[in-house]
């Protein structure tokens, strides 16, 4: 029971952080693409690297949560 609560807290907080980070990245990128569609390739590349770096941490959190559960 304690392990399940710990896993839920770990995954929940990590997903919260990832959601905020992804939201910031994606909102700025979508704004930039809609202003200048010809820069889509460069902006997508920057967004891809940012989203990948943000999402690495919650995936590790999911792994650790399933290990402690």
């Amino acid at each position, binding site marked *: 029971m304690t392990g399940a609560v710990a896993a839920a807290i770990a995954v929940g907080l990590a*997903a919260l952080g990832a*959601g905020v980070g992804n939201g910031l990245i*994606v909102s700025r990128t979508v704004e930039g*693409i809609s202003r200048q569609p010809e820069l889509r390739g460069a902006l997508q590349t920057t967004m891809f690297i940012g989203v990948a770096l943000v999402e690495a941490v*919650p995936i590790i959190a999911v792994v650790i949560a399933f290990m402690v559960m």
Partner: protein
Amino acid sequence: MNNYSVMINRQRKWMLYLLAISVIGWGFTDYQVIFQSLIIGIVAGFFNLFLLQKKIDIMGEKAANNQTAKSFGTLSRFAAAALVVVIILRYPEQFHIIAAVVGLMTPYLVIMIDFIFSSKKTTSTKRGE
């Protein structure tokens, strides 16, 4: 072909190289447990990478056409990582958890190293070249 398509093709190519190296290690060395854990981790990581590239491409296309994209696929990526961990915890004799986590994190290493090399290549040329 824009630079995003070139980048994602390069990353997929490197992931397939690493997967091939893991399969060769599984077939020709004595560390079969380590390499089959690496294979399962790299397969899940490659699925995550493929999904992320596809979703970002869809989102860019929708944003360029003033439409809205529905989802970003984060839950599917978390579920793939959870599936790998559940399989490994279910069969601890056949798999090694550290190797699988290393395989799961391989696409992020590929992305970072690829970004470092590609940014060095683009910044080392002078303006106008």
